[in-house]
């Protein structure tokens, strides 16, 4: 999983103090550990096991993911934007890799 490209969608604008809908998607197989290959061997589990979103250092949501989350995990949730600032999104892979994305957001 070297080519992980997170995708983030935020509303175009919001007023200070609003709650905004945040949509995130990251490409990842989320190999469940339940499947077998053609030789009948179990394919080892490799999933994103944790996802977090922070805005200006304040935790918005912290998710513990299990293998029952679909491939290319999608997360939609609401975040408070008391002022302009930056979102930090972090995905934690079973293999120890950590993928991050940041997104600036301006309030009016």
């Amino acid at each position, binding site marked *: 999983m070297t080519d992980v490209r997170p995708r983030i969608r935020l509303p175009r604008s919001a007023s200070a103090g609003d709650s905004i809908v945040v949509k995130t998607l990251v490409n990842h197989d989320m190999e469940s550990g339940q499947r077998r290959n053609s030789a009948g061997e179990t394919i080892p589990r490799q999933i994103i096991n944790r996802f977090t979103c922070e805005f200006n250092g304040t935790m918005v949501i912290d998710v513990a993911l*299990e293998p*029952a989350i679909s491939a290319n*995990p999608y997360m939609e949730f*609401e975040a408070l934007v008391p002022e302009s600032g930056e979102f930090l999104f972090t995905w934690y892979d079973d293999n120890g890799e950590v993928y991050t994305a940041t997104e600036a957001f301006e309030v009016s």
Partner: protein
Amino acid sequence: MLTRRDTIAIGLGASAVALLPVGAYATTTEEAIAAYTGGAEMAEGGVTITAPEIAENGNTVPISVEAPGATEIVLIATGNPTPNVGRFTFGPGSGAPMIATRIRLGRTQDVMAIAKMADGSFASTAVEVKVTIGGCGG
């Protein structure tokens, strides 16, 4: 060929597995629920699940959960080999206790959401999702 060193390593691995406490992995829905709530009573209602009645493809079933007043939501797929789906913890920056995601369902089953409220109590609800093609591989 197994060398003597390999054999010792295998032995060590096996005993490490044997030492895992029973119940470290919840294998049934009841265990998954009990592991989360500690056996506490769960109120009915206060949690809303939005999911399709019939899911053509169990590999990716859109689901959203809302639970006003909740600090955390746990999703449980009662008919999956591993019932736990995810735990969603809302931080101080959360705008609303809601989450939408996509999940795998192995077969037709009830999907359950347990919300932990700010006062430490629990509420839950469940909806049935009919699955045409299961999503657990094989």
